């Protein structure tokens, strides 16, 4: 059976050129980048060249690039690291209700440790209210964390505007840019962002590597203590092949790929819009991430639809997480105002640069049939 992968927001395949760039750093150039001998020097050069390349991509000359094990670690480092290093300033943190679980759960943990967290509301398209943000900033606020592009509904926040508000109030601004990096332009010279999370495996790079980009003068403590790697902010022997692959991956998605993904995205949106009692979640047009489609198909449950599609070779994703008793509706979809039942009936399709128009046409047909079949089983379907 032909398989169609529409879950590129979960992860992407490693691009051929990325894998080729990484290969020498497993068995041939294997030295510990902290060693003084020639084996160490060649991998140190590889790590520093990679850092330089990523720094240029972000126009982040003033920032430090701290390599981590991925987006989750970088987000944890940003929040916990800044919270603990700035306790004398205050204990207040601001974030939104639609962040990735690693940000929300890090915040919940910080609450247990005595910090106070405000979770900003979002409107029906997933945008925060800038006045609400401004009013939420207090004298004891230390950091604001707002993601760049939402992983479930593709809403793109305006980093420049949010950053300017934070800078004017003298609080740090962190943004999780795992979904947007290399798809939406990020210029740290003109965006007032103090901390930025990026990772490799959403941009055709390897899993297990990411980075926290940290502005000059930001006070932050490490999570991992050890040999003092990465300016003492992330101890542990550098993942050299991963870092080299990460730096190579930032060239994979070209402008034309972004345009191609937008076209496929809009084809899916148009095709699904013909299905009754169904709607797009998140904004349309330029404020939506180029590869994200999130649709509610009422009266059916997302996991069933996902597995129906899987039986036809199509890979999509639900925002729901299974718990022991039942299924929790997506926190993002409930935050934009969906009922639990409608949130359960939602699916995310995230296109990649290799998808074709023919694949998208096939997917639209199969989704239409599958929704119809499942609605025949559902007791919620209107007669």
């Amino acid at each position: 059976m032909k398989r169609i992968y529409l879950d590129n927001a979960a992860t992407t395949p490693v691009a051929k050129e990325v894998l080729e760039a990484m290969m020498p750093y497993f068995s041939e150039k294997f030295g510990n980048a902290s060693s003084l001998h020639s084996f160490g020097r060649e991998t140190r050069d590889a790590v520093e060249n990679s850092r330089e390349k990523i720094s240029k991509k972000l126009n982040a000359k003033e920032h430090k690039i701290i390599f981590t094990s991925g987006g989750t670690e970088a987000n944890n480092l940003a929040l916990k690291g800044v919270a603990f290093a700035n306790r004398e300033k205050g204990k207040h943190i601001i974030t939104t209700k639609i962040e990735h679980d690693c940000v929300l759960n890090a915040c919940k943990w910080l609450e247990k440790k005595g910090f106070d967290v405000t979770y900003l509301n979002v409107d029906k398209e997933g945008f925060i209210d800038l006045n609400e943000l401004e009013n939420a900033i207090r004298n004891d606020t230390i950091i604001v964390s707002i993601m760049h592009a939402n992983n479930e509904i593709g809403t793109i926040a305006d980093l420049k505007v949010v950053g300017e508000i934070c800078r004017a109030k003298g609080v740090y601004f962190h943004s999780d840019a795992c979904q947007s990096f290399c798809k939406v332009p990020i210029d740290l010279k003109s965006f007032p962002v103090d901390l930025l999370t990026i990772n490799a495996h959403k941009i055709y790079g390897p899993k297990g590597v990411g980075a926290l980009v940290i502005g000059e003068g930001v006070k932050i403590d490490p999570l991992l203590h050890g040999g003092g790697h990465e300016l003492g902010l992330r101890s542990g022997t550098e993942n050299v092949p991963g870092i080299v692959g990460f730096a190579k991956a930032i060239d994979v998605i070209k402008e034309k790929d972004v345009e191609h993904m937008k076209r496929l995205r809009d084809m899916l949106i148009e095709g699904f819009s013909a299905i009754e009692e169904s709607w797009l979640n998140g904004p349309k047009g330029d404020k939506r991430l180029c590869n994200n489609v999130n649709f509610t198909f009422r009266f059916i449950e997302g996991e069933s639809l996902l597995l129906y599609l899987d039986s036809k070779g199509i890979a999509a994703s639900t925002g729901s997480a299974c718990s022991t008793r039942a299924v929790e509706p997506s926190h993002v979809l409930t935050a934009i105002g969906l009922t639990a039942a409608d949130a359960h009936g939602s699916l995310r399709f995230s296109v990649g640069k290799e998808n074709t128009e023919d694949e998208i046409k096939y997917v639209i047909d199969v989704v239409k049939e599958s929704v119809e079949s499942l609605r025949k089983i559902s007791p919620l379907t209107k007669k």
Partner: protein
Amino acid sequence: MNEGIRYSKKIMDLFLHPKNVGELKDADGVGKVGSAVCGDIMVIYIKVAEQAGKKIIMDTKFRTFGCAAAIASSSMLTEMVKGKTLEEAEKLTWKDIEKALDGLPLVKTHCAVLAIDALKAAIKDYKQKLKGEKE
């Protein structure tokens, strides 16, 4: 929470090709359980007839809003109770459904529990209606 879910072939077959989907217009008992908030709603319909002094479930149908395990569990339940006496049907447990499905992932056992609850609700409904007729 993040360990992923794997279904048996039997569950997938029954989920993709469920049996007894629909409603019984002249049902003798209807049982509806679950809620949209939890992500599962099951409705079971039963038709009961008396044969040689025993009450037998002659026909069953179901409608389910829920995951693959919920759809497969309700379909399996309707297969299992058809032709059984009410007494026999009342003895069924969620473990019987789990066994018939060649196992359920741990986080999905509540689907089999829900199917049994729906059956119990349908039988209760039937008994109440019967009582109503006699009175």
